[in-house]
């Protein structure tokens, strides 16, 4: 049992990162994420880590990727407009397989939108924002405790899969305060990237281990002379135009997630056993959904809740199972109706799917969700 603290979500992200071993942060100020940068500017120097405020968000993620290639666990944090700017280099990190954590504390969009209000409009962008269509991992915290735990998890997954990982928070979760009990250091599992066993002379930077399809990663400045590029490359890291080599890399970038898929399913569920109506919600809205569930149960409605914690890859199998047992699914979300598309695709007609959206940037209330439950039950 550890120390009990009363923290803001954004502080929990910053301190979770420190716990995970972050040693490099680069960022650019933007509401509602700035506290993460402010806290890390104070904390990182104390642990010999590096904090730098860059000239923009593009430079921030670029510096973080550079530092990760030089061996440090790295992160950046931002919100909507800055998240848009980072997309090209998120693609670079996918292609070059660089572990890096990107926190997006969502606010209202499009454009400058509503800087101080919550929204969930980056659900699709987090997965599809960079060109090319290749996967990455997206996590969604719903509480301060999860801000802490999932930041650690984000680093672990980034390091394991050599991939960018997005922690998709929101203004409510980022700014609310909750009491949490911190784990002891010894209770926290930390995963560090695989280092090469090959000598510098025999090292091929993109030769993957056959069992997990992930290449061990050397760091710049440690005796290994290797090349990294955003161009499609062969096992030596050198650019190639050979269709066979291009396909081999592209397939491996998909396969490594396929092989590790058991590590990429994380959700929480409540009262599904006898549920006839299931609410599927993430982030701050999942909190209202929980309230709605309790009220509905009191009134005798058989309602359950399914909350994806790893948003991408989307938890298809568990959701399919639920869909084949229930009458209806309700998807409340604070955006123009984004997750509902993914839910509909996965459900594939097994049950009814109802969308509930709210666009005034006020949080969806338990009452609203309850109304919908009554309507569809």
């Amino acid at each position, binding site marked *: 049992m550890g120390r009990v603290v009363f923290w803001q979500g954004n502080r929990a992200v910053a301190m979770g990162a420190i716990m995970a071993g972050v*040693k*490099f942060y*680069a960022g650019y100020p933007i509401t509602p994420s700035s506290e993460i940068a402010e806290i890390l500017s*104070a904390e990182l*120097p*104390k642990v*010999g880590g*590096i904090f*730098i405020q*860059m*000239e*923009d968000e*593009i*430079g*921030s993620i*670029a*510096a*973080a*990727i*550079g*530092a*990760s*290639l*030089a*061996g*440090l666990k*790295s992160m950046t944090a931002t919100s909507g407009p800055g998240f848009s700017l980072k997309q*090209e*280099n998120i693609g*670079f990190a996918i292609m070059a397989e660089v572990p890096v954590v990107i926190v997006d504390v969502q606010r209202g969009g499009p454009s400058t939108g509503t800087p101080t209000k919550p929204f969930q409009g980056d659900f699709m962008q987090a997965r599809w924002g960079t060109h090319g269509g290749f996967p990455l991992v997206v996590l969604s915290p719903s509480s301060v405790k999860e801000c802490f735990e999932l930041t650690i998890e984000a680093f672990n997954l980034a390091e394991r899969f050599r991939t960018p990982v997005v922690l998709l928070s929101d203004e409510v979760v980022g700014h609310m305060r909750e009491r949490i009990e911190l784990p002891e250091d010894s209770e926290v599992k930390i995963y560090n990237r695989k280092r090469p066993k090959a000598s*510098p002379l025999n090292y091929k930077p993109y030769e993957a281990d056959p069992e997990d399809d992930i290449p061990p990663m050397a*760091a*710049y*400045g440690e*005796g*290994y*002379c*290797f*090349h*990294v*590029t*955003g*161009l499609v490359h062969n096992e*030596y890291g*050198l*650019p190639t135009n050979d269709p066979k080599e291009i396909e081999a890399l592209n397939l491996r970038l998909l396969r490594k997630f396929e092989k590790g898929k058991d590590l990429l399913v994380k959700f929480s569920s409540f009262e599904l056993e006898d549920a006839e109506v299931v609410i599927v919600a993430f982030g701050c809205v999942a909190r209202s959904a929980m309230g709605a569930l309790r009220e509905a149960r009191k009134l005798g409605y058989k309602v359950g809740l399914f909350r994806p914690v790893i948003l991408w890859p989307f938890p298809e199998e568990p959701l399919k199972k639920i869909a084949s047992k229930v009458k209806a699914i309700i998807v409340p979300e604070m955006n123009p109706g984004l997750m509902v598309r993914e839910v509909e695709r996965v459900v594939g007609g097994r049950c009814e799917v109802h969308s509930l959206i709210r666009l005034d940037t006020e949080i969806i209330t338990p009452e609203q969700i309850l109304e919908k439950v009554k309507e569809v039950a």
Partner: protein
Amino acid sequence: MPRENIARFLRLGLFPHIFCAGCGHGIAFHALIRAFDALGYNPEEVMVVSGIGCSSRIPGYINANTLHTTHGRALAFATGIKLAKPHLRVVTVMGDGDCAAIGGNHFIHAARRNIDITAIVLNNYIYGMTGGQASPTTPHGARGSTAPYGFIERQFDLCNLAVAAGAVYVARATVFHISQMESFIKKALQKRGFSFVEIISTCPTQFGRRNRLRGAVEMMEWLKNNSVPLSKAKEMSDEELEGKIVIGEFADKEMIEYTELYHSLCKAAIGEGMSK
């Protein structure tokens, strides 16, 4: 065959290179690795970072720590690397479009921070890789594939920009002035802080062809005949300097370097933590 000691900086397996016949970039590339060798560097301590463009393909051919990033972002990636591994000798190789258009923001801020990086720009006055579009350094009146009537914008003087942004070493050479180019690169590499060398390069394929400089030889002649040493340029009027390339050293000063400052900040932060 390259000399043995230069060859240790080459990934010979990747040759032949992609550059057109008559491209000036190869000359600058050669000067860069000769400078590494002359200074006694080992590939393991050298880090070369580039953006996107013909010039930015150079690191792929260099046997060292090398990184080919996104268009314009070489200095931002390099900033992360230098902070993470301060012992690395970090060099960025960029094109004029790469550094001065899309990467302009990173350029001025890397100079302002005075982080110990040597930034090299191969300025061929044009976007080579994408087919001869005008760049921020295209001379006023010159033609490009997006300036068929002549470029109406003003030409960016990157050395002036670097000086104003606070670079501690700033120099310009051309690929015709080989030994001067090599000596500027060497000085820049040895300088503690943000150093900048602009190398006027030749792109017969995309710039020459559209500007009455059909081949590599004509372009070299043009560099030779139009270059003016800084000492001489100081005595010339603006009209006389029209269309000339002023070569020489524009800044050479000492100033505390960024990673050193950061290191002191950490020491202070740790000390403060202990005294509490």
